């Protein structure tokens, strides 16, 4: 201790630097909704985490999925219609859904129905472990897992090498200035008066998204934001069709999720969403569909549902995956008119 204090007496600039860093990092903890200044990807995960941790409403139907199922409209609910919240998040692998549901259940009453609406492709990573340790992929997507769960919640999800790896990643996030790097960058890049008025580009965009998602109970169509309105080309569609011609399927994440739902006595719908023409009957998609069907037979609480029209033209997609504004309209028309009523039917005999 003496060595420590003597050192800082001799090097006061380092002492002041450390003091400033400490005060600044603590200060950041107290800034409400700091994530509104962060990059939209990070913001969105934080936003949904906030819904889980702080929203009081208990939803009747909870829809879990990825960036494609984000397009499905939520339902506010009333005395006759159960509420549906779309808790889909941009893809972060197939394993986290069980823990996301577990997290939700820690804060809310049990929903009457859970919808697994993740894209079949997420079961195509094969047996690579829970974390895909490809550094480029991980750097791109790590915020989705790191920002969604606390370290304590993460601790039970991994073991061995993967636990060590993700623990290190959490360590790097322990400084708020690192965790909210994009927010810090936007603060550094913005003019302070503009920032105080909430005119930072990221802040405005995130606020707009939050307002939209509030209205739609979790829904947002990525195709409205990121892709050309005219939709995907035939060539692009062919590329995705080719990708679906082969590939291993690992049903384990789905099976574990269904086991968990069974233990919790929650009904589940496995929902298969429409895809670009030519994909739905590819070998890979057929393999996944047979897994969906066999599990809906195996588990009495599981029902498999698909859309009447499972194939949309490329113009209904942004880049053959996410729905274009036109595709989203078609999708939600059928979803609300035909799929949602089926879900309502399933929830009818469920008592909360």
């Amino acid at each position, binding site marked *: 201790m003496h060595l420590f204090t003597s050192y800082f007496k001799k090097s006061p600039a*380092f002492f002041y*630097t450390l003091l400033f*860093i400490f005060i600044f990092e603590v200060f950041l903890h107290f800034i409400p909704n700091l994530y509104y200044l962060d990059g939209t990807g990070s913001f969105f995960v934080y936003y949904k985490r906030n819904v889980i941790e702080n929203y009081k409403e208990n939803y009747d139907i909870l829809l879990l999925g990825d960036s494609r199922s984000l397009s499905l409209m939520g339902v506010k609910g009333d005395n006759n219609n159960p509420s549906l919240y779309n808790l889909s998040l941009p893809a972060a692998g197939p394993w986290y859904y069980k823990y996301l549901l577990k997290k939700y259940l820690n804060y809310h009453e049990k929903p009457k129905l859970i919808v697994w609406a993740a894209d079949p492709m997420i079961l195509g990573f094969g047996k690579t472990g829970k974390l895909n340790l490809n550094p480029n992929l991980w750097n791109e997507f790590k915020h989705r897992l790191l920002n969604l769960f606390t370290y304590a919640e993460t601790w039970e999800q991994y073991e061995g090498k993967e636990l060590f790896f993700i623990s*290190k990643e959490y360590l790097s996030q322990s400084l708020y200035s690192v965790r909210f790097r994009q927010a810090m*960058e936007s603060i550094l890049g913005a003019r302070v008066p503009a920032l105080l008025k909430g005119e930072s580009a990221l802040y405005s965009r995130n606020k707009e998204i939050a307002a939209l998602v509030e209205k739609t109970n979790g829904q947002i169509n990525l195709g409205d934001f990121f892709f050309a309105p005219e939709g995907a080309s035939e060539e692009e569609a062919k590329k995705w069709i080719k990708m679906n011609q082969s590939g291993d399927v690992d049903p384990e994440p789905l099976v574990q999720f269904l086991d968990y739902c069974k233990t919790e006595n929650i009904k589940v719908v496995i929902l298969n969403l429409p895809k670009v023409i030519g994909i739905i009957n590819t070998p890979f998609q057929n393999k996944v569909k047979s897994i969906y069907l066999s599990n809906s037979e195996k588990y009495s609480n599981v029902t498999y549902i698909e859309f009447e029209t499972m194939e949309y033209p490329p113009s209904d997609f942004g880049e053959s995956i996410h729905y274009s504004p036109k595709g989203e309209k078609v999708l939600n028309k059928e979803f609300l008119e035909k799929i949602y009523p089926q879900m309502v039917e399933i929830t009818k005999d469920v008592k909360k």
Partner: protein
Amino acid sequence: MVFNSIDFLLFFPILYFLYCIVKKRSQNLLLLVGSYFFYGYWDYRYLSLLLLSTVIDYIASLGIENNRDNAHTKKLYLALSIFSNLTILGFFKYYNFFTLSAKVALQSIGLNTSPILLEFALPLGISFYTFQTMSYTIDVYRGHLKPTRNILDFALFVSYFPQLVAGPIERATNLLPQILNERVITYEDIEKGIFLILFGFFKKVYVADNISIIIDPIFADSGASGSMVLFACIAHTFQIYGDFAGYSDIARGLSKLMGIELMRNFNHPLLSRNLGEFWRRWHISFMSWLRDYVYFSLGDKTSSELRKNINNLFVFFLSGLWHGANWTFVIWGSISGIVNLTYKYLNPYLPGISEDRNKVTNFIIHVSGIILTFLAVTLPLIFFRSQSIEMSFTQINSLLTNFGSLEPKLISKLFKIVALLMVVEIYQYIKEDEFSIFQLPIYVRTGLYLSLFYSTIILGNFNQNAFIYFVF
């Protein structure tokens, strides 16, 4: 393990804590184990090469010492060391290069061959530790140094982790006595060490890795205009400086925390007024290695001017080859040698700083010298950076025939990245002391440390964490 990784962030504090609480003899053992862990963390199989090099040089140095009076045997032991190290280096780094080059040469005279190529990664830092251990046996041979009989101390000299994979290439005369003797850690060491680490990370993560985002697409674009190529070359010089000097600073800073003084590897080379000065300030440990162990072995002061020039060119050629097993590096080294030689003959005709001139004129001459030197170093780096010789020539062609215009945004981006670096460097250069920062008022220093820290962790690029010189 790389310095700018979480792994290292965990590794070093644990090692340092243990280092501070154990006794000196155990400190060396701890550092040795830590160094092997540091190296083996990347790929433990390559530790065998490090051990092989260590054992051979240990035996060779003792063989030389025990045969002081037997010139022939002494020479044989030296040859054993040099031959073994060059064989390891040649096989792992240059085998594919020479084999493929031979294949192309044979093809050109109509002979088709299918040589066997090696399919494993280049062992990290192999060029650094083989050169370091060779210098040890050469120093023992020359009588500059008594070999150590303790193999653990010697093994630590070879594998000392802060400088193991990217230098500085230490001389045994500097590092070994510090390993053998009691080390004292002073407050001054800690202060300087922390500053060097902070500045090193800033150079690497903020300067070098952010520049790479800007220039990588330009160097990959065969249609880039001449002005873009020129911009990319200039930015690349800052990048490679930030990357390599950053690593050296971190290595020196970590060592200072442990009471070990590593040699300075960069002394504000970008502010050199002429080429001679540049090569004395750039990668000092390597350039002085080439001078002491190659150039001086090829000739001495009495050699003819022609011989000296040829030796000089050979040293630059070797420098290029050392940097990478690719003809682009060889050409870069050779061109740098030619430019250096040209400068040598032009120098007497160039205006120099003189007390007879007024301050403004001297200042203009000084700054002009810095700019011209910078350009003379920067342009040959096209070959250093390009993926292939063809690409280098395409980009030179753009420089000469399709200069075009440059996006002002790029210049402002580069300026933002290098501004703080250059302010600090210029201040250190003017004061002729890299720790002159410590003389500044407390609030300025605090502001500087905070700027370096937050620029690194907020604005730094952590996605590209390998140091460029790891592959050399």
